[in-house]
């Protein structure tokens, strides 16, 4: 894919290796144009926050990365492979390198915590070279406990999701997302609906997971400005279906742009108060 710098992307940000690239991506649902020529490079081995108002297409963007949605127009690449027209088998291989933490954890209610965490290890089909089917019960149990310990929830493997708090569900979701040692970890609004204590815990978890996992890249969808400025290494601001600004937290803190200022201050008055066209 060619590099195409967005007009407001700070100088120099195009020079790093990208784990994900979007080029002129358009996506429309009915009459709602969500992505309108989005061009974006997500840096490798960093925590990148995707921010913007509700309805700007942040979750749509994540679903394009894992291939749940396909662009109407434009190209999407992951780990140097163009995935726009990828076949199901190619997506299956790519998804083994991606972990996704959904807004509410999206745990399977009919399965125990252990079965949820082990789901991708045991149920993923396809080629045998990935070794998932060859895990013995003891190995699977050990891996589950290791992952649950990593997210601070040891000893809950026999519980069912209905018995967990929302914070615990998210952490179990994170353990599940980490099960296949992903290269890219996606978080869809991990702190939404959390009190400040749990939010901070989740932020710490994101930072710790990133630092403890070699070669990991993280992408976090968020509205939470405290989280953004606390954890982000790179920030992408989406506005009107495109990248409005991309850069490190300092670029946002120092920005005089009224759109950025209004988003960070959370004020009801300003250019962002207009409804999304």
């Amino acid at each position, binding site marked *: 894919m060619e590099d195409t710098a967005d007009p407001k992307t700070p100088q120099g940000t195009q020079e790093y290796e990208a784990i994900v690239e979007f080029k002129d991506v358009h996506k429309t649902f009915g009459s709602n144009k969500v992505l309108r020529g989005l061009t974006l490079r997500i840096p490798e081995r960093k925590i990148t926050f995707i921010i913007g108002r509700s309805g700007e297409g942040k979750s749509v963007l994540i679903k394009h990365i894992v291939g749940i949605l396909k662009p109407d127009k434009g190209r999407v690449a992951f780990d140097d492979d163009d995935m726009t027209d990828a076949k*199901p088998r190619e997506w299956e*291989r790519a998804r083994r390198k991606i972990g996704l933490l959904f807004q509410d954890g*999206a745990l399977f209610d009919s399965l125990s915590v252990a079965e949820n965490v082990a789901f*991708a290890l045991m*149920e993923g*089909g396809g080629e045998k070279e990935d070794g998932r089917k060859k895990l013995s019960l003891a190995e699977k149990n050990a891996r589950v406990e290791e992952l649950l310990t990593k997210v601070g929830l040891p000893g809950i493997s026999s519980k069912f999701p209905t018995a967990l708090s929302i914070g615990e569900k998210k952490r179990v979701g994170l353990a599940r997302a980490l099960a296949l040692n992903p290269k890219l970890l996606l978080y869809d609004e991990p702190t939404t609906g959390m009190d400040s204590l749990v939010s901070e815990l989740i932020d710490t978890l994101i930072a710790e997971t990133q630092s403890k996992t070699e070669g990991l890249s993280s992408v976090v969808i968020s509205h939470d400005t405290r989280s953004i400025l606390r954890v982000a290494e790179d920030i992408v601001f989406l506005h009107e279906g495109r990248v409005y600004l991309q850069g490190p937290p300092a670029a946002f803190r120092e920005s005089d742009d009224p759109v950025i200022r209004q988003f960070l201050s959370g004020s009801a008055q300003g250019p962002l108060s207009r409804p999304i066209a």
Partner: protein
Amino acid sequence: MMDVVLQSLESVGGSVRSGVIGMGRYTLLVKDFFYWLLHPPFRMRLIARQLEFVGNKSFNIILLSSVFTGAVLGLQLGKIFGLFRAEGIMGAATGKALALELGPVMCGFIVTGRAGAAMAAEIATMRVNEQIDAMEAMGVDPVSYLIVPRVVASVIMMPVLAGIFVTLGILGCYVVSQLMFAVDNQVFLSQLQQLVWVSDIRKGLFKASVFGFILSSIACYRGYYARGGAKGVGEATTKAVVTSLLAILIVDFFITYFQLK
């Protein structure tokens, strides 16, 4: 006036469009079902679980409804045949009706109401809670994991349940023939043997299998494409039941037509 005409046309056009889109989606889902039916992974554990859910858990309701359906059919037919002093063939007539039509159709209705509705609601809940997206994101195909086991189990269990329904229905009719019409034992059984053929049973079981495919694939389709929270789950479940019942009746007509040709 023109506005009303345009609005009506728009409404009809919209319904036709959504119907065509629905048929297209259903066809694609069925195509995916056959793909995953023939390609690994083959999830035998999940199929076994669904066999238990569709078959074993439907047994009690099939037992009760079949005995009473056979009994009430025996009552009606016994009354009519009594006018011609031909009560002896009430068992055979009931058996024929149960084997060819009532067994598979009633089973189809009962399994739709019990298992089909549950399948639609479960898959719809998974859809609106993003669990199906999560499955896809982990590289597990939802058609392979959720739909293939349910449809396979329904196709296998429906003939078994229909067979049980027919047998117990005849038993219900037999009890009525003995208690209320004093039909001779030997006459009841010989007429039954003479008039209910093996081909009737075979045709009925084939229908049951087709109905199993219809009800489970429609239930899974409605659940899979559910949208919009709890309301969407409710709508998907209702539509699954209504569409399945109608489809069973329509397909029953065509199968019967070709079987009689």
